[in-house]
């Protein structure tokens, strides 16, 4: 191998090169630059890149000046012969390259491919006699792949080049097939003889992909080959990750325990100890576009004796809102969100405790449950339908299954997450957590489940592979219930509340610099004055996050770039919700009043 290389390098008298003497003279005229092996490889790779772009003269000049030929002389000869259609010359060069092969056994395959190209080109140009000679004299003796040989001989019957191309799937001499032949042959030779195809493109792509995997806030749908090479890629946090509180909603009179955006992103529901559920409208400001603001819409009351709103669930069509009350909750209430009409008050038995709920995809059926052991399937039309006995439910979610039915996912007091089918009465344990489960939240595409485990953080389970994908740490533990939410265009972001009054945001796809995937720390958003119990991502405006806290407020967080736009809109009174405080129950905070949130 070295022999072939040396023959081609330095003095450029590679085997069979006709003008080698001339080139050697030119070489001696250029100043000799001593290149290390790595530099020589780099030059070869660049030269190949230039040649692929069609800048052949630049490639040649580069090779001359650097004294690093792209490939051995015989390989260069082979390449030019194939591209020119000089088949005999190609065969001769190939013969001299035979020693360099990785495996001797691949020889017949290469020879076959070369002869095959020759045969097809001859057929295409109408030289059937010559083609037949190639078939008999070159292809058949190789005894390689009788099937292919048979197919090739069948092609002789083709009436014209069009039919030939169609039947064989070969795109013709002018269709880039000569280059394709060269690309396919390259794999049989070591890189010192022939470079692997498109080597520099491959290296650049690998580098960009590595940068993407380290991007802490990766939130773009651009593919790696669309990203710039001129600087290491990292998504601007300002554009994608919420970091600024753009609104403080203080219409609640007591601690706020739940907040949920509707699936269509148009509504926000909040509720807490003051026994009201408030529905807010999300409006994307027209000027400038894309800066969403929240405006009060309705206040819905549940009875005072119920200890507050424990859970709010939106129907999948975003039309209905369901509220569960706290521990003594015997009744769940369903309203129509737009009008505030109470559609259903569902009560089954006096001793029930129904503190959590989830809707099924038909926006009519829903499941409710509580840790006293009540677990019911109900519907808006009929009311109570079915009970599943003796399961102490902590959290609920639903998921469509392949056979068209819906599985209910329930976390119970034994730290199990199980799957229940109310139609077939089948059940199955999916996961066992290693600590008590506080709450559960499913991603919008129903592939990921975020489970908040007491004193352990947020665990992300993959529902298709049935494994725990990530354990997210960094939130502050304590005695109170926390909720998490999965959001972002690719379900990449996870947010949760925390006992230290801050909102935690993780990007689950990012690999920490040292490869320690498990120990990714969250960004923490400060501003609340008390425990943050619940968070919710807006499914339509991806960077928008709502958080509910014991300081009796709900805060809306936006990425810095959007937030600046939103505040500008409200400041000059042209944006929606820009008029006053008491009329719509919310006040907007200006950026200057708040400390910039620490990002770690």
């Amino acid at each position, binding site marked *: 191998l070295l022999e072939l290389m040396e023959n081609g390098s330095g003095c450029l008298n590679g085997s069979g090169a006709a003008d080698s003497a001339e080139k050697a003279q030119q070489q001696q005229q250029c100043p000799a630059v001593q290149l290390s092996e790595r530099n020589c490889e780099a030059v070869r790779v660049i030269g190949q890149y230039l040649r692929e772009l069609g800048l052949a003269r630049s490639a040649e000049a580069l090779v001359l000046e650097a004294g690093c030929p792209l490939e051995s002389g015989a390989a260069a000869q082979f390449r030019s012969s194939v591209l020119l259609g000089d088949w005999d010359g190609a065969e001769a060069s190939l013969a001299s390259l035979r020693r360099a092969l990785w495996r001797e056994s691949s020889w017949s395959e290469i020879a076959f491919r070369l002869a095959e190209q020759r045969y097809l080109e001859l057929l295409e140009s109408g030289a059937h006699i010559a083609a037949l000679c190639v078939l008999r004299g070159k292809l058949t003796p190789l005894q390689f792949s009788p099937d292919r040989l048979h197919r090739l001989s069948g092609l002789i019957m083709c009436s014209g080049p069009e039919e030939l191309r169609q039947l064989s799937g070969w795109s013709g001499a002018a269709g880039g097939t000569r280059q394709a032949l060269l690309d396919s042959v390259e794999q049989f030779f070591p890189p010192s003889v022939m470079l692997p195809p498109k080597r520099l493109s491959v290296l650049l792509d690998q580098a960009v992909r590595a940068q993407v995997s380290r991007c802490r806030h990766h939130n773009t749908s651009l593919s790696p080959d669309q990203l710039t090479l001129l600087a290491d890629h990292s998504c601007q946090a300002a554009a994608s990750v919420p970091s600024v509180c753009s609104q403080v909603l203080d219409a609640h*009179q*007591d*601690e706020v*325990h739940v907040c949920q955006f509707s699936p269509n992103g148009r509504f926000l529901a909040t509720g807490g*100890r*003051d*026994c009201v559920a408030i529905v807010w409208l999300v409006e994307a400001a027209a000027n400038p576009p894309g800066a969403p603001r929240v405006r009060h819409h309705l206040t819905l009351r549940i009875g*005072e004796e119920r200890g*507050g709103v*424990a859970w709010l669930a939106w129907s999948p069509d975003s039309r209905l809102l369901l509220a569960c009350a*706290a*521990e003594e909750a015997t009744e769940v209430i369903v309203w129509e969100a737009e009008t505030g009409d109470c559609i259903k008050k569902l009560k089954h038995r006096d001793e029930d405790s129904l503190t959590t709920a989830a809707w099924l995809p038909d926006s009519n059926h829903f499941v409710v449950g509580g*840790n006293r*052991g009540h677990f019911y399937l109900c519907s808006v039309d009929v009311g109570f339908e079915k009970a599943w*006995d*003796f*399961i*102490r439910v902590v959290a609920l979610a639903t998921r469509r299954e392949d056979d068209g039915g819906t599985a209910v996912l329930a976390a119970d*007091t*034994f730290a*199990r997450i*199980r799957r229940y089918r109310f139609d077939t009465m089948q*059940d199955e*344990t999916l996961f066992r957590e290693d600590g*008590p489960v*506080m709450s559960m939240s499913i991603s919008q595409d129903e592939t990921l489940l975020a489970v908040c485990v*007491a004193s352990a953080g947020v665990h992300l389970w993959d529902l298709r592979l049935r494994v725990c994908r990530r354990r997210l740490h960094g939130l502050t533990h304590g*005695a*109170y*219930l926390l909720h998490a939410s999965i959001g972002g265009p690719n379900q990449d972001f996870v947010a949760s509340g925390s006992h230290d009054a801050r909102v935690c945001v993780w990007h689950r796809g990012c690999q920490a610099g040292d490869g320690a995937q498990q120990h990714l720390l969250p960004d923490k958003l400060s501003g609340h004055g*008390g*425990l943050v*119990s619940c968070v919710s991502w807006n499914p339509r405006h991806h960077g928008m996050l709502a958080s509910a806290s*014991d300081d*009796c407020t709900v805060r809306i967080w936006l990425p810095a770039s959007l937030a600046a736009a939103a505040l500008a809109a409200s400041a000059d009174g042209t944006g929606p919700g820009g008029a006053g405080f008491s009329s719509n129950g919310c006040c907007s905070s200006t950026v200057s009043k708040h400390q910039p949130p620490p990002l770690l």
Partner: protein
Amino acid sequence: KSPGFNASYSMGRLHIEHMGGERVFSCANCDCPLTNRQQLISTRFTGATGRAFLFNRVVNLDTSELQDRVMLTGRHMVRDVSCRKCKTKLGWVYEFATEESQQYKEGKIILERALINESEGFPDPVKD
């Protein structure tokens, strides 16, 4: 602020665990679930209000600072335990026993019989 606002309420919604079981013990004051009969080790203990039970594991308790107490059975280091929900004192937990014969109690919890209720639970239907 709100008409129902009660200063004695804790902030946030408490995370209340539940151990299940066929006979469930809960706080007599607020019915917060604590433990079950499977966790019961002995009924032959005495507390301030009379009879007391020794349990292996109890949930939803807050513990006090460590206290040095001399009891009938010797010197022990204990912490008082109270119901996490209503803060009623319910008993104590043994952290350290000076006498070797008493070391079996370490980590176990005493709940006074008069301060807890026993009620009917149900068995776990899941077989796997």
